């Protein structure tokens, strides 16, 4: 039986998906307690720090609106600078959440349950950061509503043939569905928090968001169906969003952008960077909040395997790009890629190759895959590399375009750098709020993968230590 073979494989590894043999009660207890204890000093310090950075971001946006996009290092022909680099970077980060929650759910990968909640939260916050940049990079923010098809006295509609418009819809849809998916999954856990709440206000707030969840059989039936449908809806979005983002480049005629490999290449890169970000956050969170028995080495190792696979895909895309540039016989195409690897931005190109292709190869070794310091460093380097990938694509292609007389070297200003750092401030501010007020691990789902949840589970007759699953897989 295939299912039991899988179960045995799990047991051979770590015994169970969740270490420490918890009961249903201890699962609720250890995860709910994180949001119920008094706010720690460390949280206040971190929150103060990151929200100050987020405030600087807001102030910089204010100055940008006042002064115009000239405060950035933009200079024709580089009219798309860090704003677009950051946009693509953050959208990419936002990919892991939906992949983990939707695709791994449909593929019945029970190990996703421990990481899906905060991966989805991370997705939503990353998409918020991403959505900021296209909104502010338009020179005239007061007409940003032109991006939406609204009736107006000019009889003017957005250009439906433009990938920039598809982008608005793709990212908008992705954000909406991710938010709904995350929220639907949260409802049973919010009800748990409501039932455990002591104060009236807490009861009312968690109660309102729990939408009257009672945990009845009928509730669960509707919930499971809704969750499955949303997973089905979200799955194509994982592939579509970054494909559409890549169309922003691929549909144009610029050498270095006009490439058919862009959609799959962007999606692979997005999953790559998204998993790296989940890894960075998971490593910190499991340590700080003592949830190492929920996010076990098995989860981390699985994520490292995905990082390795997507790194190979990205590396393949880099080499195929170079090959096709040569094979096309088009001198401009050849120049664009030769220039990337050897031109003024060669340092950025080789940083990208090192971080994205060479560094993750350490994960071929099982010992490295299971070493926490190694995976922490790799996960950060991967995201550095992925930021540089977008930088190389956006800036190097534009800076040396068709008219050599206007070529110049792109130099970021303090506002370019400040806004990148500021967006991280916003991201971590939101993430800290999430850790403080919402259960960071999906309690209800974790309970479902415990051996006790298996219909064929029976209580041991001994001292309770030998609880085991005799047949079937995890729920």
């Amino acid at each position, binding site marked *: 039986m295939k299912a039991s073979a899988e179960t045995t494989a799990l047991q051979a590894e770590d015994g169970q998906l969740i270490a420490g043999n918890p009961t249903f009660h201890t699962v609720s207890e250890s995860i709910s307690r994180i949001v119920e204890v008094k706010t720690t000093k460390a949280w206040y310090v971190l929150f103060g720090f990151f929200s100050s950075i987020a405030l600087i971001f807001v102030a910089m946006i204010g100055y940008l609106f006042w002064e115009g996009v000239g405060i950035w290092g933009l200079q024709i022909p580089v009219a798309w600078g860090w704003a677009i680099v950051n946009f693509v970077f953050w959208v990419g980060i936002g990919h892991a959440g939906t992949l983990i929650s939707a695709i791994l759910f449909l593929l019945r990968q029970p190990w996703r349950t421990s990481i899906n909640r905060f991966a989805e939260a991370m997705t939503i916050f990353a998409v918020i950061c991403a959505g900021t940049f296209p909104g502010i990079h338009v020179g005239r923010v007061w007409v940003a509503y032109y991006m939406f098809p*609204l*009736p*107006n*006295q*000019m*009889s*003017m509609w957005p250009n439906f043939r433009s990938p920039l418009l598809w982008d608005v819809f793709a990212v908008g849809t992705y954000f909406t569905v991710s938010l709904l998916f995350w929220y639907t999954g949260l409802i049973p856990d919010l009800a748990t928090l*409501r*039932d455990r709440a002591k104060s009236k206000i807490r*009861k*009312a707030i968690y*109660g*309102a968001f729990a*939408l*009257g969840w009672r945990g009845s059989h009928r509730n669960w039936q509707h919930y499971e169906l809704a969750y499955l449908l949303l997973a089905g809806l979200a799955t194509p979005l994982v592939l579509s969003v970054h494909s559409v983002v890549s169309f922003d480049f691929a549909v144009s005629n610029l050498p270095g952008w006009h490439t058919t490999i862009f959609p799959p290449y962007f999606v692979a890169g997005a999953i790559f960077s998204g998993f790296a970000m989940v890894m960075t956050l998971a490593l910190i969170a499991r340590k700080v909040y003592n949830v190492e028995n929920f996010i076990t080495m098995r989860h981390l190792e699985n994520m490292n395997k995905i990082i390795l696979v997507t790194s190979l895909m990205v590396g393949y895309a880099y080499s195929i790009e170079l090959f096709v540039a040569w094979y096309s016989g088009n001198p401009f195409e050849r120049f664009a890629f030769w220039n990337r690897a050897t031109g003024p931005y060669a340092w950025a190109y080789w940083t990208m190759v090192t971080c994205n292709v060479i560094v993750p190869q350490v994960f071929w070794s099982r010992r490295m895959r299971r070493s926490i310091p190694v995976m922490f460093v790799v996960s950060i380097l991967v995201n550095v590399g992925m930021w540089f990938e977008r930088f190389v694509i956006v800036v190097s292609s534009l800076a040396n375009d068709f008219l050599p007389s206007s070529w110049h070297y792109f130099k970021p200003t303090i506002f370019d750098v400040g806004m990148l750092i500021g967006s991280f401030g916003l991201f971590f501010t939101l993430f800290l709020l999430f850790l403080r007020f919402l259960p960071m691990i999906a309690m209800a789902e974790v309970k479902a993968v415990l051996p006790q949840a298996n219909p064929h589970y029976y209580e041991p007759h001994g001292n309770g230590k030998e609880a085991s699953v005799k047949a079937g897989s995890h729920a």
Partner: protein
Amino acid sequence: MAQIFPKWTNRLPLIMALSGLLVVGGGVGFFWYYGSPKYLEVGYRPEQPVPYSHKLHAGDLGMDCRYCHNFVEVSHEANVPPIQTCMNCHTLIKPNSEKLVAIQESWTTGRPLQWIRVHKLPEYAYFDHSAHLRAGVGCASCHGNVAEMEKITKVEPMSMGWCLDCHRDPDMHLRPLDQITNMKWVPPPNQREYAAKVKKERNILPPENCSACHR
């Protein structure tokens, strides 16, 4: 366990969804209508420094528009006439009228009269009167029946959508060239056929691209 919320809150999600739709739809509708030149600008009728009556001059006396706005056929602008044009007649006709004090003053001092502009296009929109006249668009198509206006009033919104409406289907506004200034002209029953003919003859291809007006 005691209920936290009273029973009516069950309806809250529905109410919130409906009011959300209402707020968004209402907001868009509000700006669409109340923010448009159709609401904000049609009917603009400022008090001019001289109580000049188009009804008297162009209507009752039957003067041609081009007697005063004499560059309209050759220039992008339908010029406001200089005081000299007024004085062609008013040195002899009612030279001492109280209503003409400002005209007389301008004439003696040489300081131009500050008329208040009623039909004002934004500077980023290029518009050429002569091209429209040559295509056979009459004055009244945009300015209304001026011959019946005591004071000049803006009757059309002159929004971008309004311009485009005519550029997309100009048929009803194309006249014989000798009817351009006729304020009472109405399209005959066979106007579509006539328009098809003159569009070919006069090579009328109203542009709809951005740079036609935003150069």
